[in-house]
């Protein structure tokens, strides 16, 4: 069984991915990568990752967030993060990635930031 469940929904032209579970080395990271690549293939390049349900992320998962960010940017789009748990926030602070990602703690602000 996969470590992560990714639910996709559309809010205007922004695709919101609700992540539930672990983004770690192995399946969790691979599933996120596959989903992002598929969305880009469908021309969806405004992507918001809702991390509220992510109980755990490791360095491999952080690497996958970076990889997704870069892949989306390369296609002229934007990937942003929503609802970081305190632990994820700490890990992004340690890695200085809070300077790279746009992060939000409410969905309405996150969605309006794409306009």
């Amino acid at each position, binding site marked *: 069984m996969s470590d992560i469940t990714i639910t996709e929904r559309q809010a205007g032209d922004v695709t919101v991915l609700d992540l539930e579970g672990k983004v770690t*080395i192995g399946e969790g990271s691979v599933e996120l990568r596959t989903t992002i690549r598929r969305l880009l293939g469908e021309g969806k390049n405004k992507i918001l990752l809702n991390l509220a349900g992510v109980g755990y992320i490791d*360095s491999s998962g952080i*690497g*996958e967030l970076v990889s997704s960010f870069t892949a989306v940017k390369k296609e002229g789009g934007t990937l942003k993060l929503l609802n970081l748990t305190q632990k994820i926030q700490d890990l992004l602070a340690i890695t200085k990635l809070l300077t790279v990602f746009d992060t939000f703690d409410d969905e309405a602000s996150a969605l309006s930031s794409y306009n």
Partner: protein
Amino acid sequence: MSEIREITLPSRIESVEQAAASAEEFAKSRGYGDGVLFAIDLAVRESVANAINHGNKFDEEKKVELRLAESEQGLEITVRDYGAGFVVDEIPDPTNPENLLKTNGRGILFMNSFMDEVEWSNPPGGGLSVKMLKKL
């Protein structure tokens, strides 16, 4: 009284979860709090993943050894692989602006950030060993 747990794992991804579960059970049985549990979990996952991936390079003939030991100083975690080893000081700093968008290289940063002491060595018989201490 000191407690020790030692497990040997094959070099495959599933071993990371197995190592983390064993460490969590050990740490919970010692009554550690959430902050310590998180630090131990992260350190074990990152060090075992490094050993499997960068050390043994997924060669299942080569094992990864995990040792958990409680002492007066705290909890000591040792992870050893049997790979070719690498020079830890040569790993680029992932927080340098030119490295921020690299997809790997953050595991050692997490180990250093969440553990109180991290010491690398090349044990007799080959491979690389990392000993980490979490003070309690």
